[in-house]
């Protein structure tokens, strides 16, 4: 594969990571804790759309290789993920009287409950959407790019959702209130913003985007009960890289982490080609920059960012 091919793959994977990281970052800044259940919220979205799609079928025509029914299922996945998150906030998080660390630990319990319920219902094996896998687009093959129409659909849908969020945050009343609350919750409250209601909307948007990300992840790879939890740390890496609490930072971080993740094979080719001396160092470098360590590289970047620039690459107050 060429560099362009890896970049194209990176773009697709980045779209999924971006959808996940925006929600995590929003919840982090407005509900004020690291939500470890975010990955499993993605799983909920994915399995909801699997069930919905299985129930309603294709509904006739198709866009970008995906039947209409899939898009209905996508909306269902987003809606159910948002509903579950709001229900959890109302039932569990809101009545709790503990600090953000306690909320973090609670969210781990929530994550286990989500995953356990899905695993009880669907088993631990991975499944696929009942959609015919497509051949890569012929026109792009000469450039070494192997993407299918489905991949294009993922990127286009993610862009639509991200632009929609941008409009919401910048040009609507709700968006202004959310930004105010992320900035200073007490000040927002005394200014007459109903912070509880804004928090619920944050959960709706964050979990909805996560649900969409989960559906696309299922389309991109497969569906498995662990899919979300396995991706959670990569998403955390993206959020931290972009700066916690900054939505645009999370977009940038998600994009970068997704790219780095998919470009790892390319990097490993580069490392092999580089004249590293002495020989053992070259072997170590080749061993560590390989596809098995794609996630590990993201985690190491995350720790480095935390050490060097705890506010992320975007800096502070970029929301």
């Amino acid at each position: 594969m060429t560099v362009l091919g890896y970049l194209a793959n990176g773009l697709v994977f980045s779209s999924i990571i971006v959808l996940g990281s925006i929600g995590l970052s929003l919840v982090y800044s407005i509900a004020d804790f690291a939500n470890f259940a975010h990955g499993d919220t993605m799983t909920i979205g994915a399995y909801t759309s699997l069930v919905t799609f299985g129930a309603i079928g294709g509904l006739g025509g198709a866009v970008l290789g995906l039947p209409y029914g899939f898009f209905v299922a996508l909306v269902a996945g987003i809606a159910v993920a948002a509903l579950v998150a709001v229900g959890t906030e109302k039932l569990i998080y809101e009545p709790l009287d503990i600090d953000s660390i306690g909320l973090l630990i609670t969210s781990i319990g929530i994550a286990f409950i989500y995953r356990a319920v899905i695993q009880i219902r669907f088993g631990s094996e991975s499944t696929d959407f009942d959609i015919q896998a497509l051949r890569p687009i012929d026109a792009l093959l000469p450039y070494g790019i192997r993407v299918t129409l489905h991949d294009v659909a993922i990127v286009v849908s993610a862009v639509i959702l991200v632009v929609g969020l941008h409009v919401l945050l910048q040009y609507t009343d709700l968006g202004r209130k959310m930004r105010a609350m992320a900035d200073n919750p007490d000040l927002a409250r005394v200014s007459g913003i109903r912070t509880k209601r804004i928090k619920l909307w944050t959960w709706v948007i964050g979990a909805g985007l996560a649900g969409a990300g989960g559906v696309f992840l299922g389309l991109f790879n497969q569906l498995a009960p662990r899919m979300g939890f396995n991706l959670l740390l990569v998403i955390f890496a993206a959020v931290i890289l972009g700066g916690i609490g900054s939505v645009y930072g999370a977009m940038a971080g998600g994009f970068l982490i997704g790219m780095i993740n998919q470009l790892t094979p390319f990097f490993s080719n580069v490392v092999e080609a580089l004249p590293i001396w002495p020989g053992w160092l070259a072997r170590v470098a080749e061993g560590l920059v390989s596809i098995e360590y794609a996630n590990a590289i993201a985690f190491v970047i995350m720790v480095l960012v935390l050490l060097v620039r705890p506010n992320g690459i975007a800096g502070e107050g970029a929301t």
Partner: protein
Amino acid sequence: MSLLANPKETISDLSRPEKWVLGVSVAFMVFLFGALVTGALGPAYFLFLVGLAGMYALLSFGLNAQWGFTGLINFSVAAFFGIGAYGSALMTADSSPIAGGLNPIIGLVVALVVALVLALLIGIPTLRLRADYLAIASLGLAEVVRLIVLNERWLTNGSAGLRGIPGFFKGWPVLSSFPETMPGLRLVIIPGSPILLETSFWRASLNVLLVFAFAGGTYLVLRRAHRSPWGRVLRTIRSDEDLARALGKNTYSFKMQSFILGSLIMALAGVFYTHLNLYVGPGDLDPITTFYAWVAVILGGSGSNRGALFGGIVIVTIREGTRFLNEVPVIDPAPLRLLLIGVVIVAVMRYRPQGVLPPQRELIWPNAIDDRGAPERPESGVREQKGGGDDE
């Protein structure tokens, strides 16, 4: 609760949750003993469970030294546990790709040294971070360790894991051949269902002895450390790090010491697990181990070593108790276990965030309390008492 109806002095001194825990433990013990006598539970398997409970207690002690004492959110428990297990397995196992066949004592030492190095590697970058960042970073680094163990086949045998691990007492004078030399006993308590005590039973009892030694020693060290001036600094850091710094304490250094202490204890749990299970694989580094230890600590009560012990036993009950559901085809035990763990976490945080046995008298030197034990609970609130009398 007829036991509590005739109050002995010691029991009446206990606080309410302590009585509950005592009652439940006694009932549980009676239940286990019944299962043992009727032959529903094999004696060797029972001792295996006791060993496992001891191991989880050890793991919880380690986490308690970090989170309970100092408030460090360490989500890399599984990494230290795994490093301890792999360190000793690589030294002692027949199938080890590097050394192998060495004395388990050497394995123990190597495991602890490697865990010390790893604790420094993880601790130096992460301990300066804010609490929630520490959680994420340590979980990430634990995953890095897991991926290395999984992928570096020349070092760890990769996903195949390590087999052919000897018992811990291999090469010791009497104990190495103790299981084989002990006669097979046949106890008939209930006619028709005899209990056989064979080599596996004696081997398991040696393991239980070992974990009691590990856990007992650790418990004593931790109890001493927790009450010492050193432990007081840690507790100050936990409640207010800025205050500790204002008092002239180098909090980073104290956090590092507590992190290393806890990590070594976790590695010790790993060493024991190696010789208990006789197989080590990359699956043992799964993050779920970390969260098992966390559940044990927050359920027992953060900062309480007794609580950690209690939590460890509960975890084994959840982990192994669900195995008996294998016969029931309705529900798969693996997700059920996950569900139970999740529900326990949420329920504890919701209803009793301080845990079942929060540290109270544990933190006070025994001779600082007068002979009557616990101070009396005032009938009315403290504020009312203070408001009532000006010159007391």
